[in-house]
């Protein structure tokens, strides 16, 4: 590993001290199969060609990099919005599911499983399964199924089999547990499409590579618009952290680019109901990797809270734990209330209603000095799915 690559995964599957593949023997053959094959498959020109083609003609890439003039005026900065909300299915999640289903096909897998929290990754997975004619099973926490009914129906319309996770807290982490158990029981013909840069190596790396298209586009789009291919700051929200990794990826070694990660503070970091992992978490092992996670002193994983269902995961991807530890990225904690106001702000100033996840990233503009800076905010998703939350919040 060269020092140039100190923020990317090393040959043992670690980012600094975080990462690894802490999986039971029952899952190991699947993980080894992926570890041994993913780079070779992804580097094949036929793979790249199909991936690029689907991203362009099916997903709608490149997504625009839009200079938000009224927002820029407000902050006296040059603020660009990377419009992942304009991707097919309404969020960046599909970049990864397109990549992973092609990977699954190359590995001759017949069935797909996935977990979902808010339902965005589930919808993106159900979508690519329909596209490829593959059987699709989505695990979703029983509590989340009640909270995210429209997405449950979207997945059903797309032909997916939705299974309710009834264990533990019945939310995202439990859906992930159930998906892993399903994979243990069906080890040979099934590929598990993890939705974020979490899980055992090589998942964090392969998801990061599929999402890296975001910063690849930012580079050439910025170059076209301002004559240099880097901003002063990139801001993204972090739950597990896949959209953030995508937006940071090609700037990881570009030290003049400030990387800002907005975590969900829920009711506040001094409150029990929060999901700000770098503020409240400690080192531990969750879903197969060593990372920062929210847990009790006894090592039991605690249930996080955020108004945004996409950010209430008790851990963060190991790469983010490493970016946090090394100081390469700056993390801030955004409360529900701050995020909701930021969401309204973007709606009123630019005519874009963001997903509440994204609204956390918008709010980070108030937490850092951005005057006279070139700032890129990753608009990870659109707010259509969150209308009920906006409505019940009501302060607009």
């Amino acid at each position, binding site marked *: 590993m060269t020092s140039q690559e100190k923020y990317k995964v090393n040959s043992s599957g670690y980012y600094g001290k975080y990462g*690894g593949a802490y999986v039971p*023997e029952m899952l*190991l*053959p699947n993980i080894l199969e992926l570890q041994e094959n993913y780079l070779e498959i992804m580097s094949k020109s036929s793979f790249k060609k199909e991936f690029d083609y689907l991203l362009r003609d099916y997903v709608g890439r490149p997504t625009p990099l839009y200079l938000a003039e009224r927002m820029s005026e407000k902050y006296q900065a040059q603020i660009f919005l990377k419009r992942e909300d304009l991707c097919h299915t309404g969020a960046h999640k599909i970049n990864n599911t397109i990549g992973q289903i092609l990977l699954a096909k190359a590995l001759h897998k017949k069935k797909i499983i996935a977990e979902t929290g808010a339902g965005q990754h589930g919808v993106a997975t159900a979508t690519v399964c329909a596209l490829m004619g593959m059987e699709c099973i989505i695990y979703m926490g029983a509590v989340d199924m009640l909270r995210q009914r429209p997405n449950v129906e979207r997945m059903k319309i797309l032909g997916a089999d939705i299974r309710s996770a009834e*264990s533990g807290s019945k939310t995202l982490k439990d859906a992930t547990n159930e998906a892993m*158990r399903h994979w243990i029981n069906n080890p040979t013909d099934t590929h598990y499409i993890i939705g974020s840069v979490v899980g055992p190596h090589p998942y964090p790396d392969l998801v990061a590579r599929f999402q890296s298209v975001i910063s690849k586009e930012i580079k050439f789009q910025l170059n076209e618009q301002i004559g240099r291919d880097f901003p002063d700051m990139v801001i993204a929200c972090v739950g597990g952290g896949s959209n953030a990794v995508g937006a940071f990826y090609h700037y990881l070694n570009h030290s003049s680019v400030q990387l800002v990660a907005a975590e969900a503070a829920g009711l506040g970091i001094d409150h029990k109901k929060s999901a700000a992992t770098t503020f409240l978490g400690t080192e531990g092992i969750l879903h197969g990797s060593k990372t920062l996670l929210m847990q009790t002193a006894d*090592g*039991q994983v605690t249930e996080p809270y955020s108004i945004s269902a996409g950010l209430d995961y008790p851990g963060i991807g190991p790469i983010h734990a490493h970016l946090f530890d090394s100081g390469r990225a700056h993390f801030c904690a955004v409360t529900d209330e701050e995020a909701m106001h930021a969401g309204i702000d973007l709606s009123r100033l630019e005519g874009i209603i963001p997903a509440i996840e994204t609204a956390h990233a918008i709010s980070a503009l108030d937490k850092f000095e951005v005057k006279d800076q070139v700032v890129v905010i990753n608009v990870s998703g659109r707010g259509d799915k969150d209308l009920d939350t906006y409505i019940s919040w009501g302060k607009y």
Partner: protein
Amino acid sequence: MNRINEVFFSKKKNVLSIYFTAGYPKIDDTLRIARVLQTAGTDMIEIGIPYSDPIADGPTIQDSSQKALDAGMSLKLLMVQLQDLRKYISIPVILMGYINPVLQYGFGKFCQDCKEVGIDGVIIPDLPMQEYVETYQRTFEEYGIYNIFLITPQTSERRILRINEVSKGFVYMVSSASITGAKQNVSQEQVDYFVRIQKMNLSIERLIGFGISNKETFKNACKYASGAIIGSAFINQLSKDASDEAIISFVGSIVN
């Protein structure tokens, strides 16, 4: 000699190991159940450390873990409950649990406390062999705690040979590609796998677990290994009736 080795030394066949979750069904049941299991004729005991996210376990063990946690069970409390373990228990006792609670407890302290209370071995399904060898093996050995590895029908021959070298006491043969939980019967595919491993003539003893639930499945598994492990079926028994008599009668139904 480690008590695990002693068992296999004195008993070549039909070794019965029984698993139960610490603090289930009642938080202070741990030592009582261990004592009754010994009295009833169990050869070895596995005590599960409850964990919030047990991905290798089926609904029965998940449920017992969650109930134990809800009642206030923790690894710290388990070590306290086991203070007097060796006053009453002479058979081997193994702790089975996931890596995260062990790391939060402090790995060195965990090994030290295991030794102090008289734990003979541990099974940590999500501690991979590579990590074990690089980071943990020395401390386990320093305290004389055996780390027991799992193998499955999908584990490659090369890996099995490596596990044969690294595992201590015995290897835990997971009977099928599955999470824990009682199943109907033993399939031909499983028998083929048992025979395949039997023919490898490993130097280490083998116990078969996952899906062993009664005398029939126990006897069947014992044809291909030194013995077998019963977990979920015993937890189901405890959920129905955890009295001393019920436990004695459950074990009796398997060994007699």
